[in-house]
């Protein structure tokens, strides 16, 4: 800890100068090329501690590939700090701020979205704006794709850079089920007919909370209210149909609704163990990957509801006290290159959909994203066109609190 001090002091002053430079450039659309060159120069030899959920071995292997490429291309050492929950990184930065560590934090980059982002923004824990300075950010064409600059209705303001996409995707064993439910209402009827074969992750799990939002959107007629802070509307009245629905649904769930799976991946395990017959995930490629790994039967099929399902974009952000901001920015930019994005979308690697606007890429780059495999487990190619946008993050918290007050400790 002592040895590295002089060097980090030096890079610290340079970083501060950089931040000032970048700040002044914010008003311009994209940084001047000279500035970016300075970032690349400064990043050389730095280490990036990238805090990212480590619960999926495919994601982890993709991150290993990123680390290799960053080392080879930019002489940047990327270290994947595997988290059980992204909130741990938020907590960590907070503890550092609490202790007055404002310039030598331990988190350089964090994989984030939704309420974690909202929380870090609200507490001034993020560095930025920086996203627009990244040369490859332009390929996302935010002017046509507002979702890459919007996180749960909140504008990202350049404090996080888009990385990938997620959408609720249901899956089931096609050998067992012919016609899966195509809406929240049908789901209840299906559960009544097949007691104990469906469930959703325990709140406050991310996927579980998203299921609540999905149900609320379908069951209430208050779409506009959902996209504004919850304080501005009558929560009890708007959410009433959801609770009626859940009260009726729970007795027909797995374990009669007295217990819930821990997470999306936990549901997948339960489907593999034949405890559940129908489940959902946030990563559209996950069921196909699980078939490849023999965790699900080859007869597994994926689909989304008729009216569409909730989807969102996930991002990377840089904490305000990261000592390696230049390298973190360089990494965020590398993640947006067609090379990295295409590899990420490759089902054999990870299968996470790209955030680049493929229709606006030049032919050579667009070609990287072609060749969708003919995999029966995968979603139909047009399925992800029916994406419902995420409500305001305050709804997530309100729903979580109400769910827990209603169903915990009974």
């Amino acid at each position, binding site marked *: 800890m002592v040895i590295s001090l002089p060097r980090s002091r030096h890079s610290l002053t340079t970083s501060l100068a950089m931040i000032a430079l970048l700040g002044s450039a914010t008003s311009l659309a994209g940084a001047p090329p000279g500035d970016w060159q300075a970032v690349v120069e400064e990043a050389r030899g730095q280490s990036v501690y990238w805090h990212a959920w480590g619960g*999926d*071995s495919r994601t982890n292997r993709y991150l290993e590939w990123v680390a290799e490429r960053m080392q080879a291309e930019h002489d940047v050492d990327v270290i994947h700090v595997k988290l*059980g929950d992204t909130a741990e990184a938020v907590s960590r930065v907070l503890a550092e701020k609490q202790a007055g560590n404002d310039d030598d934090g*331990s*988190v350089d980059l964090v994989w984030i979205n939704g309420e974690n982002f909202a929380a870090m923004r609200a507490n001034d824990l993020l560095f930025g704006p920086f996203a627009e300075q990244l040369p490859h950010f332009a390929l996302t064409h935010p002017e046509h794709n507002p979702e890459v600059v919007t996180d749960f209705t909140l504008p990202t303001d350049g404090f996080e850079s888009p990385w990938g996409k997620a959408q609720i995707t249901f899956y089931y064993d096609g050998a067992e089920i012919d016609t899966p439910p195509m809406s929240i209402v049908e789901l209840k009827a299906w559960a009544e007919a097949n007691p104990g074969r469906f469930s959703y992750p325990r709140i406050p799990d991310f996927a579980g909370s998203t299921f609540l939002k999905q149900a609320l959107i379908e069951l209430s007629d208050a779409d506009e209210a959902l996209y504004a802070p919850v304080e501005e509307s009558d929560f009890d009245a708007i959410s009433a149909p959801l609770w009626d629905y859940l009260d009726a649904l729970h007795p027909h769930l797995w374990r009669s609704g007295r217990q819930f799976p821990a*997470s999306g*991946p936990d549901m997948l395990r339960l489907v593999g163990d034949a*405890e559940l017959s129908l489940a959902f995930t946030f990563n559209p490629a996950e069921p196909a990957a699980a078939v490849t790994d*023999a965790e699900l039967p080859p007869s597994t099929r994926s689909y989304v509801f008729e009216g569409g399902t909730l989807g969102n974009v996930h991002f990377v952000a840089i904490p305000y006290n990261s000592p390696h901001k230049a390298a973190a920015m360089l990494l965020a930019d590398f993640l947006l290159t067609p090379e990295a994005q295409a590899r990420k979308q490759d089902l054999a690697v990870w299968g996470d959909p790209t955030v680049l606007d493929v229709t606006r890429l030049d032919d050579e780059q667009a070609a990287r994203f072609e060749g969708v495999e003919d995999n029966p487990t995968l979603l139909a190619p047009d399925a992800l066109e029916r994406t419902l946008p995420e409500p305001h993050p305050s709804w997530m918290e309100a729903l979580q609190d109400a769910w827990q007050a209603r169903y915990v400790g009974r």
Partner: protein
Amino acid sequence: MLRLTPWLIIALLVGPILAGLAMAALPAFGYLPALGGDAFSLEPWRALLAQPGLARSVAISFTSGLATTAVSLTVVLLFLAAASGSRLDRWIRRMVSPLLSIPHAAAAFGLAFLIAPSGLVARALSPAPSGWERPPDLLIVNDPWGLSLMAGLIIKEIPFLLLMSLAALHQLDAERRVAMARSLGYRPTIAWLKVVMPSLYPLIRLPVFAVIAYASSVVDVAMILGPTLPPTLAVSILTWFNAPDLSQRFMASAGALLQLGVTLAALASWWGLECLVRRLGRGWVAGGQRQRGERMLRLAGKALILLAALTALVGIAGLALNSLAGVWRFPDGLPQTVTLQHWQRALPSLGGPVAATLLIATVATLLAAGLVLAALEHEQRSGRQPAQGQLGFLEGRRSAALTLLYLPLIVPQIAFLFGLVVVMEALGTRPTRWLVIFGHLLFVLPYVFLSLSEAYRRFDPRWSRVALTLGATPDGAFWRVRLPMLLAPLLTAMAVGLAVSIGQYLPTLLLGAGRITTVTTEAVALASGGSRRLIGVWALVQASLPLLGFIIAVGLPRLLWTNRRGMRGTP
């Protein structure tokens, strides 16, 4: 130098814990300037009390602390009473160390897969005789009463209490006592319970207290096996601490203090129970009853411990199967296909964490062993051996020192570790390997002391006297006589230390800022991904590392002393 070690140890152990508790106490009363809390208030406590299911969380944590301890202790005592000298006795004694070395998380994963509705037991019974074509919809793992949690803890605490009891039994001359009672017409099991147990219990009281504290505040096992709606108090606290809504940290801090209170309440209740049992037991011991119930007790003593040991071992075997399984559908008892894919994929990423784990565990254990040896040697040289069965080592302040050494085992980790992180940050300490090693030392040190002190104090003082009168210096006598002769117990204590360090989750995670990856943090991080195949791989690696330590501890003395008959068996 030697004279300072006891104080050094106390400072090392007590300082961080008190500092950590203080930094948990301030936010608990509203003070956390970084989050805008600059005035003291009771708001965090109000928020805490308003949490749905809080009463239930507290009740489960409290009950788990008491029930786990009561059952584990009963099983251990009945076994010792029933099985001395039998073949089962020898087998169990040999299994103590390997069982002890299985990390809690790995044992919990193993048990979960054993007893789940789609687990090994259900598969063995299906489709015949159970008639289950699909896993039954039964709430077994994560049951709301915490029974599976307690079961998971019991199979891990039995070997711990057994090891502690075996060490303490050396000074009781149990065989002679039992022989005496038998000559008065008592059946052996009854005799042991009446004449040995009352003297044994005071000697293992502190380990028992450590079990209560651990079982009432454990995090990793409770995450795997514990109830979920709501979870135990410790798991809830971790969730609140990690909540993205940062204001929950105030409430989490209040929860940390509540956890401390719950653990202390469990300890106090146990103490009350002790008094009650002692009063009732006195009548029973002196009642003259010699035979009745012996057959039942004997059977229970053997069957229960066998059940616990087999559960742990079969659970681990289940994990091994999982790590090799390809397609494995319910109700197949064995995988349809076997594959090395999970191992091959994990191998490239195993090296770093395994090396880090071994490095941290080795350094922490060597430091702990050095400090413990220095403290014990000082105790010997100053000639102030504590009275039999007392575990303190500071002259004149025995009872105080006694409590302090075990502070890290009594104060719940979750109550002080978050505060400790804040303290370290405030001191400008960057998360490094050394900080993690220091964090591990907090827990390794007491266990090494616990494991070594008995053998050290029991060591015949005449050996050192002979050496001294032959002209050896006190240091020479230590290095040339005491240390080599105590090599076997020292290595065992170090193996225990290694196992403790390897199993640490929260201290590694928090003090290493997640940058220091060990097999344990890796396994628990993967646990959130749910893939049991991969968990199988990591849990096996996690379980095999401490085993390595125990193999060395058993094998090295045998190798060194092949031609020294007097060095076989404990000196």
